[in-house]
């Protein structure tokens, strides 16, 4: 394995080929490399080429969660999502760009069961242990998306700027299918550079978790009120960040025997988040 440090985006783009991986905070990539879940011949240290910092509504993808959680320019929902994510050290290391691309915490996936996300033909969680898993869109793969930040950005209608295009953050994600097991729509070698966040009139992020800190969401609810209404997005309830219209959307959940409790939880948090932003 080799590590390279491109000085320009062009250089980085040239280096990010088949067996190479972009490395920023490393909080996800390094453990996955060491577990053999991800293989790489070349690590491309992109920290010098990906923007870092906040300017108005623009957030450099290299900004750490630790920097964002204390930045007053950032809408409350995103700040709180950062604050309640992971552990302090992980927030100090992990970037917002990397956070959006993190993999599920599904134990079957992490332990390399031959599950659907790994290209296999069964979801082990559906008939197994799934208390932390998805209650929406869970027929093919019941993994839950762990990113608090992604839910906040979906609620905030953020736009993702990559080195190739710009797209709404919700379009960054796709449900895995038989043909394509990816949960993001990013092309190979494509780099997230910046995020643009709409300024809401009010926003919030509420999170139910097993500990008071340092836990992935059982249910996370981001709410943002704009002139055209309140936008809601959930973490931990579907294989990708989940946009909902209101508490009634929870009626469409398809919980598994061991995670039906998330329905009550989601309903309660949606109601509270909506009320908190004055919706």
């Amino acid at each position, binding site marked *: 394995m080799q590590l390279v440090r491109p000085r320009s985006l062009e250089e980085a783009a040239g280096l990010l080929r088949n067996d190479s991986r972009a*490395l920023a905070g490393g909080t996800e990539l*390094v453990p996955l490399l060491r577990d053999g879940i991800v293989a790489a011949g070349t690590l491309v240290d992109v920290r010098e080429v990906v923007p870092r910092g906040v300017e108005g509504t623009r957030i450099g993808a290299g900004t750490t969660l630790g920097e964002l959680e204390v930045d007053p320019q950032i809408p409350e929902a995103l700040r709180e999502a950062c604050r309640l994510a992971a552990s*302090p050290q*992980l927030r100090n*290391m992990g970037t917002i760009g990397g956070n959006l691309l993190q993999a599920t915490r599904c134990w079957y996936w992490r332990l390399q069961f031959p599950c659907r996300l790994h290209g296999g033909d069964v979801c082990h969680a559906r008939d197994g242990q799934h208390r932390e898993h998805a209650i929406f869109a869970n027929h093919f793969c019941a993994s839950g998306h762990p990113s608090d930040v992604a839910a906040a950005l979906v609620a905030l209608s953020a736009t993702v700027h990559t080195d190739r295009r710009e797209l709404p953050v919700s379009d960054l994600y796709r449900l895995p299918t038989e043909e394509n097991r990816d949960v993001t729509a990013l092309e190979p070698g494509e780099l997230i550079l910046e995020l643009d966040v709409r300024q809401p009139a009010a926003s919030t992020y509420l999170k139910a978790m097993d500990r008071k800190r340092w836990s992935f969401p059982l249910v996370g609810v981001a709410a943002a009120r704009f002139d055209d209404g309140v936008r809601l997005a959930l973490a931990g309830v579907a294989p990708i960040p989940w946009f909902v219209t209101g508490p009634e959307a929870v009626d469409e959940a398809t919980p598994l025997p061991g995670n039906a409790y998330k329905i009550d939880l989601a309903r309660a948090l949606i109601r509270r988040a909506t009320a908190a932003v004055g919706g």
Partner: protein
Amino acid sequence: MRLRINGAAHEVEAPVGQTLAETLRGALGFTGTKVACGEGHCGACTVLIDGVPQLSCITLVHTVEDHEVTTIEGLRDHPLVDAFVRCDALQCGFCTPGQIVSASALVEANPEPTVDEIRHAMAGNLCRCGTYPRIEEAIQTWRG
């Protein structure tokens, strides 16, 4: 490669993929930095990189060239050490160096943290002996 650790320069050889914790504990003999999970979950391996607490067990050593690394060995005379001993903020002590490293960054940025601020900043350092109430007291009274 060259590393700056606790203000001193060190030359080490390490294959790409080796972590900072492995280098510190192995080639350099800084065994004060403990590894308890090896995958970024427990905080025992916490070191400061340019003054910011990070996890040396999932930091590739080659990414900290040109950065200042501070380990517990660089903080041995920090008043927090006294405070931890005075408040009985350690039992087995295996997580303690990491706790002190994290706490040192907290009090550097915020010399009089509230209980909530302590709990927020220290939540990534697990202590299985359960010394948390003592740690809270040690940080609140770190100046003696």
